């Protein structure tokens, strides 16, 4: 392995996802522009991994490749030992831009992926997840009648309702106000601890990464590489004033080269 960075998952858990030598370039005006360069990454089963990096470094691109929406210029992604060739309902992507369907009600959106279930079972699941994300009373509302935060929760609920074993979240809380964002982080952790899904979570917010993740993969500016992987060895619930928390946070600040600016 040529990279100096520890990329392997915590050895005690089995590997869920392995990305090997992923490179990606886009052509723009006839010129090839590298966006990702030789990305290697392993994610353990049930792990919560944050991808952290500056805007435009290729986080969304990497996540789209992992989810199978884009195919990389070179390299491959294996999940459970199988090469990813396209999107799959066992792994749901929550989009950075709002992905809820404006033509469906809240119930319709949550039930969108449940078409294989019987009606009664579907209704039960819808009710369960409406409650889980706190949208009771809005089941018959259309997304245009919801606030930004409610739409975001709706999209998370739609993803969870199909009981995927992986969740890919692309800055899901980016557009929320800071209070809602804190609440949503708590909710996500609660859901993750209850259902132990493998989560890859993209963010450019260092605090968010340190509060949520088991490990934080820090990416460099374009062309994106994985610069370092930081283990966050603090048990939940995390005390954001603890010495260890501050130490890790400062370490990542240094890593990104921001420490002296603040």
């Amino acid at each position: 392995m040529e990279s100096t960075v520890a990329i392997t998952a915590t050895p005690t858990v089995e590997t869920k996802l392995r990305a090997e030598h992923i490179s990606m370039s886009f052509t723009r005006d006839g010129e090839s522009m590298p966006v990702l360069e030789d990305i290697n990454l392993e994610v353990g089963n049930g792990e919560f991994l944050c991808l952290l990096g500056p805007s435009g470094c290729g986080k969304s691109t990497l996540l789209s490749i992992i989810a199978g929406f884009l195919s990389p210029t070179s390299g491959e992604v294996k999940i459970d030992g199988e090469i990813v060739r396209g999107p799959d309902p066992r792994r749901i992507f929550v989009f950075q831009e709002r992905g809820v369907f404006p033509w469906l009600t809240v119930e319709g959106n949550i039930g969108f992926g449940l078409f294989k279930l019987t009606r009664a079972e579907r209704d039960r699941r819808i009710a369960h997840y409406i409650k889980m994300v706190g949208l009771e009373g809005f089941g018959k509302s259309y997304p245009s009648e919801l606030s930004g935060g409610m739409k975001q929760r709706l999209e998370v609920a739609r993803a969870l309702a199909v009981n995927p074993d992986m969740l890919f979240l692309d800055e899901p809380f980016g557009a929320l106000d800071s209070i809602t964002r804190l609440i949503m982080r708590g909710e996500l952790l609660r859901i993750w601890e209850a259902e132990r899904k493998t989560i890859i979570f993209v963010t450019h917010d260092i605090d968010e990464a340190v509060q949520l993740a088991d490990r934080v993969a820090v990416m460099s500016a374009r062309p994106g590489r994985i610069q370092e992987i930081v283990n966050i060895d603090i048990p939940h619930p995390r005390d954001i004033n603890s010495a260890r928390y501050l130490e890790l946070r400062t370490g990542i600040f240094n890593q990104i080269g921001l420490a002296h600016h603040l």
Partner: protein
Amino acid sequence: MPSPWGVVGGLVDLTSHGLLVKYVVASLFRVTWGFTLAAILAIPLGLTIGWYRRAEMAFNPLIQFLRPISPLAWIPIAILWFGVGDLSAIFLIFLSCFFPLLLTAINAVRNIPAVYINAGRNFGLSPGALVYRVLYPAVVPQLIVGLRITLGIAWLVVVAAEMIAVNSGLGFLIVDARNAGNRYDLVVAGMVLIGLIGLLLDIGMRSLEKVKSFRWSYSEE
């Protein structure tokens, strides 16, 4: 020019001869057929072309070229193929609706945000289900606006077609009233009818836009 009372007299005259209903029905019959056929063919075709980038590349220049040819310029060809009569008029209306609807459908597909398609694929929909559950609801609002505008064009063209290519209907009424004895009261009566029916058609289509499940795009804008 006739006075308003003259026009009312003309309308009464038409009704008492049974021509009013007959001509209105004749015009509506042609519009219904031409418009419906065009919608049935143009919408699926346009959705398909819009979905495949290569198809869009291949057909766009041709469509752009055929579109500005006035449907009425096809009259000689319509008469050659279908003779003077209903079929000719239906063919002309079909043509006048076909290209606008085709373009509406193509653009509607191309304007679907990629997130919706990706989300649909992510939940493991089959291609058929993707069309039915994502593509179709995403394009409906734009299609309805396109259908409304196109119905207006169809109504415009039927009148013109009837002036040349058939001998019944409201367009025929207007030329005939003028040619057979300068009955300008009937000419204006015909125009009033054309305006009223056009208005009703437009109102009908607009009420479709208000249907709740179609309305999402209007309410967001």
